[in-house]
């Protein structure tokens, strides 16, 4: 069974490389902030340090886990067909679940040592930057404590195994023939449990928004970030529905381009028809955009509002901290986006091959790919902004009576453009490589 688990890892390096990266980030981030907390407890007057590390770390850790969990679900869904095949040759449901557990735990243990090292290095440089800015007492050091790395790996394994339970739910329950049928037809429908969970999270975001209106700026900022993360979770849970609505609207102009080579029409129909796949592609882009937007809004609105109230030095430090956090979240978002788009596009090689065999020209495929990637990227951006909107408005209301948050376009536009460029490039590069494969052998491959 262990050999089989590694066999699957070996033959799908692309899908598992992404997962390994996400798990690596999760372990390193927890190690990093665990080390910060350890540094705070051993440093005199380290309570401020604990505060900064805690506030900063909690968002980063939740984000790291979110990315790890979505990537994991993705990697497991990528081998649904293989797992269903195992069921048809009489693997028990338990064996299928165990195979996946081996993969998850094994991969986490594999990436742990380098992740510990990376986390320790990051903690040291972050701490010295804090000391340089006078945000931490001089002489504060990260102690050589084995607890943070251990906790990091344990926590990631626990979360990973829990995520694996959900990801293998469909494939390891029911009959082999149902498992097999489930791999060929992704309906895009989501179960009642997931819908309910999603609605509960949406309700939670609403409550949080109401709560943060009456808060002090610092608490309101933290609550807004948490709210943005919770909205992301809700999008990930309810994904196909909002994704489908947005893509249908955005795809209208493409559908009108029926004449000529009809690559746009093909793309619009294709993208809307695969709501499930689309929502997987859109979530990381929305994550990237939604969290960056929330950050921008908080930072800019606060600075705008506080101008003249706080000494410049204090607000500069604050901005610096937020900048580091945005960079970190952007890193997670980028990893998730690249991983998801590349594996989704590569997984469609059979579909591209079929289109070629029934007479689509390479040019049509490239056009379709281009239209699809733009459509996917824009849908992600729209959903990301939509996710950031409620918490941003609530945050603006907590500072002023004006519900319109202040955003500096000079800072904000590069993020939106960057997200679109990243998504389009990833999908195009992966897609062009996939199109270049020989269609006849791709279609007949087992």
């Amino acid at each position, binding site marked *: 069974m262990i050999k089989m688990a590694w066999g699957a890892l070996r033959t*799908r390096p692309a899908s598992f490389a992404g997962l390994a990266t996400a798990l690596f980030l999760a372990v390193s981030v927890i190690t990093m902030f665990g080390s910060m907390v350890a540094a705070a407890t051993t440093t005199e007057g380290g309570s401020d340090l604990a505060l900064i590390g805690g506030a900063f770390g909690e968002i980063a850790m939740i984000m790291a886990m979110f990315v790890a969990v979505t990537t994991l679900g993705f990697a497991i869904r990528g081998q649904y067909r293989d797992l269903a095949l*195992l069921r*048809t040759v009489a693997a028990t449901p338990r064996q299928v679940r165990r195979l996946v557990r081996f993969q998850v735990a094994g991969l986490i243990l594999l990436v742990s040592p380098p992740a510990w090292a990376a986390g320790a290095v990051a903690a040291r440089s972050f701490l010295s930057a804090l000391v340089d800015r006078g945000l931490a007492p001089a002489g504060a050091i990260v102690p050589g404590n084995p607890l943070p790395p251990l906790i990091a790996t344990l926590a990631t394994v626990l979360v990973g195994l829990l995520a694996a339970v959900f990801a293998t739910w469909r494939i390891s329950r029911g009959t082999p023939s149902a498992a097999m049928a489930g791999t060929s037809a992704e309906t895009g429908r989501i179960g009642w449990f997931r819908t309910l969970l999603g609605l509960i999270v949406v309700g939670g975001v609403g409550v949080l928004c109401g709560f943060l209106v009456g808060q002090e700026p610092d608490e309101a900022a933290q609550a807004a970030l948490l709210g943005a993360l919770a909205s992301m979770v809700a999008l990930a849970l309810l994904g196909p529905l909002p994704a489908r609505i947005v893509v249908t609207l955005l795809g209208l102009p493409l559908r009108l381009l029926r004449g000529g080579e009809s690559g746009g029409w093909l793309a619009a129909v294709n993208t809307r028809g695969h709501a499930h796949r689309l929502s997987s592609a859109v979530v990381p882009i929305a994550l990237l955009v939604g969290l960056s937007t929330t950050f921008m809004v908080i930072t800019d609105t606060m600075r705008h509002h506080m101008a003249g109230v706080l000494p410049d030095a204090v607000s500069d430090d604050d901005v610096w901290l937020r900048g580091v956090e945005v960079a970190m979240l952007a890193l997670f978002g980028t990893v998730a986006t690249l991983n998801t788009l590349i594996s989704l596009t590569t997984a469609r090689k059979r579909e591209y091959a079929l289109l070629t065999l029934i007479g689509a020209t390479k040019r049509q495929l490239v056009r379709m790919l281009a239209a699809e990637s733009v459509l996917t990227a824009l849908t992600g951006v729209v959903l990301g902004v939509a996710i950031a909107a409620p918490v941003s408005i609530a945050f603006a209301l907590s500072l002023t009576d004006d519900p319109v948050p202040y955003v500096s376009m000079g800072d904000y536009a590069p993020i939106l453009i960057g997200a679109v460029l990243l998504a389009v490039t990833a999908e195009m590069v992966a897609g062009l490589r996939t199109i270049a494969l020989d269609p006849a052998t791709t279609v007949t491959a087992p």
Partner: protein
Amino acid sequence: MSLFGNEQVYGVRPEGGGAGREIRVRGLRREFKRGGGRVHALQGVDVTFAPGSFTAVMGPSGSGKTTLLQCVAGMDRPTRGAVHWGPTEITRLREHKLARLRRSTVGFVFQAYNLMPAMTVAENVVLPTRLMGGRVDRARVGRVLTQVGLGGCEKERPGRLSGGQQQRVAIARALYNQPEILFADEPTGALDRNTGREILRLLREGVEEHGRTCVMVTHDPLAASFADRVLMMTDGELVEDLTRPSAAVIAEKLGGLS
């Protein structure tokens, strides 16, 4: 080349040839939810497959023949009714128990081969054994592959083989554990006539030499003529039960159904 005829290849079956389990199917119904409505794939099927018999199940597409095979083979669960393998009512077993019983008793050959692309031919053949936690006998893998005409292909990947060769790997996988019962869903559906005939000969010899029970779904009258008994279905019901019919008779009856 003698296929399956050689006792040294498979050893002596513990129960002795022909003493396998009878398969009893009673009141089998299977409904699917499709769109808003319900599809009645099986509308009350009663049939018994004698140990050591070779049965072909035929019918137009949508007649329920594959659903019947999947329910009888324990790959799918009927909405109502019971399937017995000998004394065991498999429709009452929980999924993991059924999976265990299936891999020790039953082999299944699919039209789409269902091989693991990432594994070598030999790894595919021993996969069910691996899943049982059983010991892998390399010599036996070699012998089974030789028997299906794939000697020396152990290290190949399925993707490099032709359709007929892939189906032989699937048959080798199904036969490696010397199952009492072999189910085959359109095993020759994706193959040319000659290759198909060799596959059918393999199934036939397993029945004759080892008393294996074989149930095969097919739409090809020539393939069905390899069987002792031919069942015909329409609209989820059995409508014909023929004993050793010729391909011509099968084609004529089949023509009358659609």
